[in-house]
């Protein structure tokens, strides 16, 4: 059982690559909010870790201030210079009637790492002590991630009308870094057997371009085309590195639903490319936050978990001999995704964490939570996709 001890702290991992201030915290907030709504009544909650929770609170406070002031200005995009780890858990609470001392909360942790794309370049890494120190951990995280999430500033893509503006898109969205990162991630996915591999291309700030969430935009096709064109290299790199393994999900997300780009502003600050900011306005009175398609990220994670579990069970069922079963078990008990899968979904996690002998009540409560969590996961994963979301078939 030594392997089980090793995987105790192992969360399901997601790597994020994209410029800072593209709205990652907002995205996470949106993901949490929408997922929360969808989990309503399941007895399963989605919770952020302490640091993550604090970031989310800050972001929500800023939004409230902006609504009050009726003025919303997004920060300018810039290259991400530091790492941020967002921690999220899906937690199945014990039944209401269970006494506090008998409660056993079952949870699945997700770990979302955002780090500078520039660190992929050894030369850049060598210039930063932080990079040199943190890179091994980052690389490990990337290689273990079942999902690569690429947040995209839709406004940058859509509002680049003039040649100089169009010429700035590649730099502003860090396309080179995204492509390199995708290649690295996909390569590790190939090496990790039948583990899931989901690439999510997530345009953010899409309110202006769609007419399905209170806006009047009719530019969804143009956005899709621009994303396809701009991220073609990244998508092709994924397919090249892990043929037939990567699922590419296109998920244009409204992180607010009530904030719409009013005036794009391109600044020439003397650099190699133009800087982009925008004037935004609130839609509706009072503005009401109404995320759209944000739950896609969580849903895809759940699907990865569920489909992997099914695959594992199938393989085990096919194993004809005891010896084969033992080999499979050993493989699945290794660290990594399948280790985590077994650990969290089979109840071993709480079993391993126990501080002694469970009482019968505790055991029952734990089993109930386990069932709820599994049920919620299945429910989330089988929820229909938002109509905006597409799975792009490669080739």
């Amino acid at each position: 059982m030594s392997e089980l001890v090793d995987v105790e702290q192992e969360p399901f991992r997601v790597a994020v690559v994209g410029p800072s201030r593209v709205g990652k915290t907002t995205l996470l907030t949106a993901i949490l909010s929408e997922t929360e709504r969808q989990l309503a009544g399941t007895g399963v909650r989605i919770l952020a870790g302490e640091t993550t929770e604090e970031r989310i609170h800050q972001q929500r406070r800023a939004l409230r201030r902006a609504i009050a002031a009726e003025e919303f200005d997004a920060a300018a995009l810039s290259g991400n210079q530091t790492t941020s780890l967002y921690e999220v858990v899906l937690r199945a609470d014990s039944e209401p009637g269970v006494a506090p001392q008998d409660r056993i909360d079952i949870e699945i942790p997700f770990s979302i790492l955002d780090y500078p794309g520039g660190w992929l370049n050894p030369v850049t890494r060598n210039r930063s002590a932080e990079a040199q120190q943190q890179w091994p951990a980052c690389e490990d995280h990337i290689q273990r991630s079942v999902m690569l999430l690429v947040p995209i500033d839709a406004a940058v893509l859509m509002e680049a009308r003039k040649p100089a503006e169009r010429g700035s898109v590649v730099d502003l969205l860090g396309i080179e870094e995204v492509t390199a990162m995708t290649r690295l991630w996909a390569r590790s996915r190939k090496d990790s057997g039948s583990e899931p591999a989901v690439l999510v291309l997530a345009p953010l700030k899409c309110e202006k371009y769609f007419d399905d969430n209170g806006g009047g935009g009719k530019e969804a096709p143009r956005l899709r085309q621009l994303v396809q064109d701009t991220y073609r290299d990244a998508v092709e790199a994924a397919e090249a590195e892990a043929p037939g393994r990567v699922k590419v999900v296109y998920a244009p997300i409204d992180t607010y639903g009530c904030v719409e780009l009013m005036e794009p502003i391109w600044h020439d600050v003397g650099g190699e490319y133009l800087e982009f900011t925008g004037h935004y306005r609130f839609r509706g009175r009072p503005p009401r936050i109404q995320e759209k398609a944000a739950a896609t990220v969580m849903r895809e994670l759940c699907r990865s978990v569920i489909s992997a579990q099914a695959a594992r069970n199938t393989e085990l069922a096919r194993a004809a001999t005891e010896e084969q079963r033992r080999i499979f078990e050993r493989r699945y008990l290794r660290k990594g995704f399948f280790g985590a899968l077994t650990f969290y979904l089979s109840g071993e996690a709480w079993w391993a964490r126990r501080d002694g002998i469970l009482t019968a009540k505790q055991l029952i409560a734990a089993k109930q939570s386990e069932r709820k969590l599994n049920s919620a996961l299945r429910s989330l994963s089988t929820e229909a996709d938002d109509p905006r979301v597409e799975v792009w078939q490669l080739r």
Partner: protein
Amino acid sequence: MRQIPMVERETAYWTTVRGMIADLGAALDDLREGDEVTAIAATADLDVAAMDAIAVAALGALAGVRSRVSRRTINIGVSGRARNGKSTLLQSLSGLTDDQIPAGRGQPVTAVRSSIYHSTVRTGAVLTLHSEASFCAEVLAPYHRALNLMPTPRTLEEFSTFRYPLTADELTGDVGPHPKSGPMLVRLRDEMQRALPSFRRYLTGHQREITLSESELGSLRQWVAYPPATDVGMPDRRHFAVRDATVTCRFPIDDVADLALVDLPGLGELVPDADRHHLDGLKDDVDFVIVVKRPTDTNALWSVEDGDALQLIIDASGAAAVRDFVTILVNSGGCAAENIDALKRDIRDRLNEGLDDRSYNVITADSADRQQVKEKVLQVVLEHLATALPRMDADVFAFAQAACETGREQLRGLIGRHLAALRSIHTPSELLRLDHKRTELLDEVTTHLHAWIEELQARTGAEYADQEFLDEVTKVQDRARSWVIDGFGVEGGQAAWVEQVLPKMLRAAGPATVMQNTLNGIRTEIAIRFNDIDSMLDKRRNEFWKGLAGGLGPRFANLLQGDSPEEVLRNLRDTLDSADHDSPSLVKALDQALDVRLDYRTRLLPEVWRKLEALMPYHRKETEEQFFSMLTLAATAEGGHQLFNQISGLARSVITDIGGMLSGEPSANALILLAYGQYFEDAFIRSAGTPDDFLNVTTGFQDQLWPEEVSGPATSTVRIQRAKDALNHLNQALTGSKRSNG
């Protein structure tokens, strides 16, 4: 007479040849003005004047034939030195008397060349008088030249006041021996100048004729003869005013019709140019000449002067054999038989080389004896002419033919070598030249249009930025945005706007009406403000036309006129359309190019309006909630500000969208203009009618399209070609004529 058509044909032919020689002369003059040294050298010794002289000689020979064969009378000239009985013979033959043809003694009497026609029905005379100018030029000038007296008077006034030397000794220069110059000076000074008053009135400004009736014929003498020496005082010398006299009377010879006598004065007279006058009288006008010689004691031998006079006649006989043309009349009247015999012997021995009538027929008769004249002279002459005239006619005709043929040979010889030399210098034919020009023009237009199309194409590339256009869009956008932010045009900005709308909101107990009206106003205003982009579209269209005009290349540029590119192209279109030679394909291509539509209303307004629909409340279900939410705003100052923020935010979004849409316009424009350009290129240089149209343009506008070729290599080519053509035409005329006559 049968020769007449041939003579007429040949005359017309040689007249044409003379015209061609003149053309050749002009072409060679033109060639020599250029700088084509090879061609100039090749034609350097081509003597056009000599060629013309050959043609003139041929025409002269033909004129002789025509004059002979078309004459209705037999003209017998009577010649002879003074005092040999010439006038007496004329009297005997014509029946005229001393009153009309004086036959005085002791001095020359016949002053004017006269022709006397036999007519049984009419008697009279016609005198042709000199004009003042012809008198000066034809009568005075020869004397002045002979006597070296300058300047020759040009008017009678100058003549009357001319100071002549008193004696011939005072004459200077080469004026000949005194015995000749002295009498001439006397005649000029004493007879003409002094007697000028007696004939001045007949020298009018114009030549004119005086007709004398039968009854007036008696006065003829004073018109044609010197006044008698017996005249005292101012002699009447009106004969100086007479240029020519034609007398018609009934000859005393019944059996002769169509006979004319020509009195040939001058031989042996001391009159300048007498010999030339004599020849002029003989040539072409006389069929036969009787030379009268009266052997007196001092004039019994055939003298040198007689020989000289005879030679003049021989010279004038032209093609006719001398024996057929001349006879010598030994005027025996009043002469001693010894003298007569001596003369006849002398003529036989020296003139006829020992044989009677070997070269010259000799008749002996008394010219005063009409009977003798009739029988021995006239009848003999007429009998001779009966056989000699056809022979002479044939001779003259053959001579003319030979002259024509010789002329042709000479001309062919002259031009042949030069033609070969010029032909060796290559020049294209006119058709080929025009075809080359057409190709040159088409190639030039093709090249330049292609370059222009490439420019248009470059502007359609993703990387091409029409910065000027984009800047203009930004400006228009910024102005519209400022208008919104600054209170929708209300002076005082947002606060003033709120102040203005608040009463309305209160009256309506809500913002609905204000919202509706404001949005309506904004839509109109924004649509109008973006109209400013029209100037940029107009500019691009003008640039397109300018580029197109430039794309036609430098030759077409010579046809372009106008202040604006559009005017330039319209003028070109009209020029081509109104040209003598049609070029419909080119005109159509220009029409289409001029129909480029690139204006705001046509191109952009529909798109702009689609964007403006976002400012229509309740227009779209997806956005109506935004408008419903505005209706909940309170009719307070705060509500007014919130309404402003909501509406202005929407308006700014729309302005952004329109600006974004317009930012894509340069690419769209570039594609449109490229399409127009390519369409024009196709229609202008590749349509089925293009080759013909370009040939027509080349033909019709050659001078404008190739203005530099007023001089230069191409002009040299034209000059050489012109000289070649002139020589070729002449050569063909000469060669073709030979064939047709051969």
